[in-house]
């Protein structure tokens, strides 16, 4: 404990209340998803019926399958592109690398609603029919920076001597990559892949604009349900998507902290 922490008393209480505030709404939502009552906010007893209802809802399950397909395709594509880009800028500095980083960060800088409008107009103008294809393309773009950052961080932290040693021992560049770089890189790769997957799975605004009628995703479907009203079914499906995200982020965090 640093001496300064003794100078500012009460910070523990501030921290504790902050985290209660941050997590209480999420916990309330998850608890209420196990509520037996059809009145979404009045507790009458424990039940998992609403989860059964969710799994029996064919429209909802179709939306979920769409979401999985989109997130998998976009995340894998983005991870491949991001890995190539990170290898291209590895241990390099200067104007060109700064420019590459700036372009890759673009999807993080532009407000989502602006990206949504621009993508919608663009797809309509070039004559692409709105559907799964347009959603995957839009997701691919904003997944790239989320995959790029952990992969680049991992590459930058890597000891250059290892790759040089492999080269000194007559390994071809391909063999060096396969036997040295890739095994060291995989936690970064997996971490980037998972973050990209989660960002795609959770996206609502951009998907809402570019999905068209056939490509409803889980968040778009949930939005429609919320519009109709609060219900225990919405509580259940919301809890599910929350838990999926939290599980992925926690896993990605653990993997990202694996020994270098």
């Amino acid at each position, binding site marked *: *404990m*640093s*001496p*300064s922490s003794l*100078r*500012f008393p009460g*910070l*523990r209480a*501030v*921290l504790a209340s*902050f*985290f209660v*505030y*941050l*997590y209480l*709404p*999420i916990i*309330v*939502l998850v608890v209420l998803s196990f509520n037996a009552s059809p009145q*979404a*906010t009045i507790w009458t007893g424990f039940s998992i019926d609403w989860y059964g209802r969710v799994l029996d809802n064919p429209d909802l399950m179709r939306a979920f399958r769409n979401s999985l397909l989109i997130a998998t395709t976009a995340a894998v594509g983005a991870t491949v*592109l*991001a890995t*190539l*880009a990170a*290898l*291209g*800028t590895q241990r390099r500095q200067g104007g060109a690398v700064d420019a*590459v980083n700036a*372009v890759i960060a*673009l*999807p993080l800088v*532009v*407000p*989502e*609603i*602006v990206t949504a*409008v*621009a*993508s*919608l*107009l*663009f797809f309509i*103008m070039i004559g692409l029919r709105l559907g799964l294809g347009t959603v995957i393309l839009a997701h*691919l*773009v904003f997944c*790239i920076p989320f995959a790029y950052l952990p992969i680049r961080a991992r590459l930058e932290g890597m000891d250059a001597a290892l790759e040089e040693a492999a080269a000194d021992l007559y390994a071809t*560049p391909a063999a060096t990559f396969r036997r040295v770089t890739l095994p060291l890189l995989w936690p970064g790769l997996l971490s980037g892949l998972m973050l990209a997957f989660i*960002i795609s799975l*959770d996206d*609502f*605004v951009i998907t809402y604009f570019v999905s068209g009628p056939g490509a409803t995703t889980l968040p778009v479907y*949930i939005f429609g349900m*919320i519009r109709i009203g*609060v219900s225990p079914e919405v509580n259940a499906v*919301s809890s599910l*998507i*929350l838990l999926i*995200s939290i599980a992925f*982020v926690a896993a990605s965090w653990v993997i990202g902290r694996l020994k270098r």
Partner: protein
Amino acid sequence: MASPARSGRMLLTAPALAIIVAFMLLPLLLMAYISILEKGPAGGVRWGAHTVEAYVAFLFERDLADELVLNTDYLRIFLRSFWLAGLTTLITLAIGFPTALGMALAPPRWRTFLIFLVTVPFWANLLVRNYAWIILLRNNGLVDQARHAVGLGSGPLDLLYTPVAVLIGLVYSYLPFMVLPIFASLEKLDWRLVEAAFDLGARRWQALRRIVVPLAMPGIVAGCILVFIPGLGAFITPELLGGGKALMIGNLIQSQFGAARNWPFGAALSFALLALVLLAMLAYLLRYRAPPGAER
């Protein structure tokens, strides 16, 4: 060591750059162009017919005699958006600064876990996090129930579907964006400076105001930008918690591609929002020589 192999390696960045340029940069340019086109009679645009009508429509409308008259409908939405985003920034700063200070002064082995706890809600679905507040705020929802249980008044509070509900939702949604950059600044702070201030007889408040806050300024400014900008363009929160009674710019933009069918106006609004973002980023870059939030 710029061997040909190493400079050739830059080509590996080409596929990612090509995708972002083709499906992000080009669309943004197209959007900027569409904002200066005339709207088509049944939606869409009239190619080649240039006009600044969409920007004029921010403040004016044409009456029957085709003369410009001030239209305060949109102005009210702009003011509400700036007001709500500004207030959100102030409140998240008031909550976020002490929190970040607490995190920075926590024992080092706790810190990574605390950062993890702050980031988890950022990755959790925004739609769902706002929905949780509907459950809390709606009439006879949990806030009302808790209030009645402790005997603080009876009857509903009627919070949901008001600007206050939107404010609560915005603060909750963007709080991590304020805490993390301030924490990043505070974590690098040399606490011996603060100790020196105390040794020289500074009171707690003086040490904070004269030492800690000035040194944390890059983080504070970055946090304010990272909260204010998405707050200004918020769509989900006003849509769910404002219930049509507290519309913000994001909702106005969306309606131009739905019922209103005025693409140039929607594009102009989006472009104005984008211009604001870029100006804020540029100002930060010039002042602090690094993009906001990059020091994390």
